[in-house]
């Protein structure tokens, strides 16, 4: 039976903090812990998704820079994906449109090779 999950967080200053979670003793929680136990062997995929903390807030400009970089990366790997001309002055409509494109190409297959690329 899985009882606890210890999560260690860190930062660039080499500081650490440990969070201790008690895993519930029910079927769903134990099944989830079992899935986690399997996937931990392959390592964590995203370890920096922190949202809403005061020092972790992104500016709109930062977000736009990241979106532009991602579009560039997708276009390099798969030139056939056409994002068109992205209008960042009309963010809501464009985000909706791009979201559909991103969902379609989440795991990219290169146009040049059969390699699958995780973005």
């Amino acid at each position, binding site marked *: 039976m899985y009882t606890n999950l210890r999560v260690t967080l*860190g930062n660039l200053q080499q500081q650490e903090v440990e969070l201790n979670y008690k895993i519930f003793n029910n079927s769903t*929680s134990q099944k989830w812990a079992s899935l986690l136990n399997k996937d931990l062997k392959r*390592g964590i995929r995203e370890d920096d998704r922190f*949202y809403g903390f005061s020092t972790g807030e992104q500016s709109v400009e930062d977000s736009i820079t990241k979106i532009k970089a991602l579009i560039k990366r997708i276009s390099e790997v798969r030139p056939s994906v056409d994002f068109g001309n992205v209008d960042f002055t009309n963010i809501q409509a464009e985000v909706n449109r791009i979201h559909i494109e991103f969902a379609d190409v989440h795991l990219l297959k290169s146009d040049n090779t059969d390699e699958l690329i995780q973005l």
Partner: protein
Amino acid sequence: MCDAYIVATFHVSEKIDIPEAALSAKKLAPDFGDLVINYAHVGRHIRELYYSGDLDLPIEHVKLFTNMSADFCMHFGPTPEVKQYERTLKKIEDWFKLNSSFFEKMDLDWNPQKLGINRIGVAELVDAPCDPIEQKNFQRRLSFFDKILKLELETKKKPFAFF
């Protein structure tokens, strides 16, 4: 206090159906210190559609939140009021019925359990602060960190049964 949270995702090897009993959990927003199952798809689930107010998307991008992987989310935001659940659920129901023509295309009827609307908690933070001021201070302390360094699971072997 902001709604702060940390998401951990993995190179997922397996996704399984969330047991029906868990889908009926009456929680739309996690409490402070809850660790909940994260959405296991690239797509959009019903609660997300409701909060974004956006149905301008192909129906194949709608994937219900009815299965799980190892991915999880740790919450450090304000604990919602108990009454908030019923109020928000009613709002989602009204919105769902107002947009029934969209959901009929997917053969979806209003059934919060089958639609995977509720949040599923699988663990809780030990010694999580209950007081809102302490919660805010806790959240502020965590704001100095930006990376998950290590995850360790602990197990307890079942005791032998003696007959």
